[in-house]
């Protein structure tokens, strides 16, 4: 549009990296941002999975775990 910028022009800066949080409305994200979001999704899911996997195993599993251990083995 404007080929040359003159002194005093008001420039609305659009920094492609500033929209990482998705505030850009309906505009398609830049590839860079898109990749970052995809990565964040994978990492978020991984974090969720790991957080459940690091919970202590609930007591309700104990009977079954003893059976698996063979200490209280009804079906072996």
């Amino acid at each position: 549009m404007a080929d040359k910028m003159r002194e005093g022009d008001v420039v609305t800066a659009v920094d492609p990296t500033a929209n990482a949080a998705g505030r850009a409305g309906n505009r398609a994200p830049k590839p860079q941002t898109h990749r970052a979001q995809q990565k964040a999704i994978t990492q978020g899911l991984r974090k969720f999975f790991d957080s459940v996997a690091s919970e202590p195993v609930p007591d309700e599993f104990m009977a079954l775990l003893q059976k698996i251990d063979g200490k209280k083995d009804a079906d072996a």
Partner: protein
Amino acid sequence: MNRPLPAHEHQEAPRPMTKEEEKDFRQGLVEMVPVLRAFARSLCGKRDLADDLAQETLAKALQARDKFRPGTNLKAWLFVILRNEFYSNHRRAKTVSNYAAAEGMHSDAMEPEQHASLDLSDLMRAFNQLPFEQKEALILTAGEFSYDEAAAICGCAVGTIKSRVSRARKRLESLVEGKDGVLPARSEHPEDPTDAFFKFGRSVTEKAPG
């Protein structure tokens, strides 16, 4: 973890396990409890139902131990059993899914006291909106397994896994950004009928002798 993938559970192993192999197998089951709980929670959202699913999987695996080939990937074998259990409960209870929708049950997939990050909470609420096959494709490939392994676990082509992952990511992105519909409020999650599947599935399995 580059052990070969085991065959699907229906396929028979050539021989029963030796005592030593069985000991390793039992120990392996115990070690896999945390990841089985995590996979189950990812698929069905609610904590109690997910833990039931994990326990059903362990019980089934113990029963079917002679079908496991020692030296192959135990985690993948268990995940196959878990998803089979999940899908058979799902099918069995399909008819009651509307009751759950009416009750407006919520999901325990993400509990606020354990996870301070609001973004992660949004992500998991969006995740719960995905179809099951997209959820499993995403979770399996998010760190536990390669695309090839995920395809073997789900019994489909690698390309299918890739396209499910890609569709799921796109959908998650637009959900989290609020571009494509609105996330359900934290306290209600009526769209996900999984709870009913498992309520029903559980009442069935509870009646069956262990």
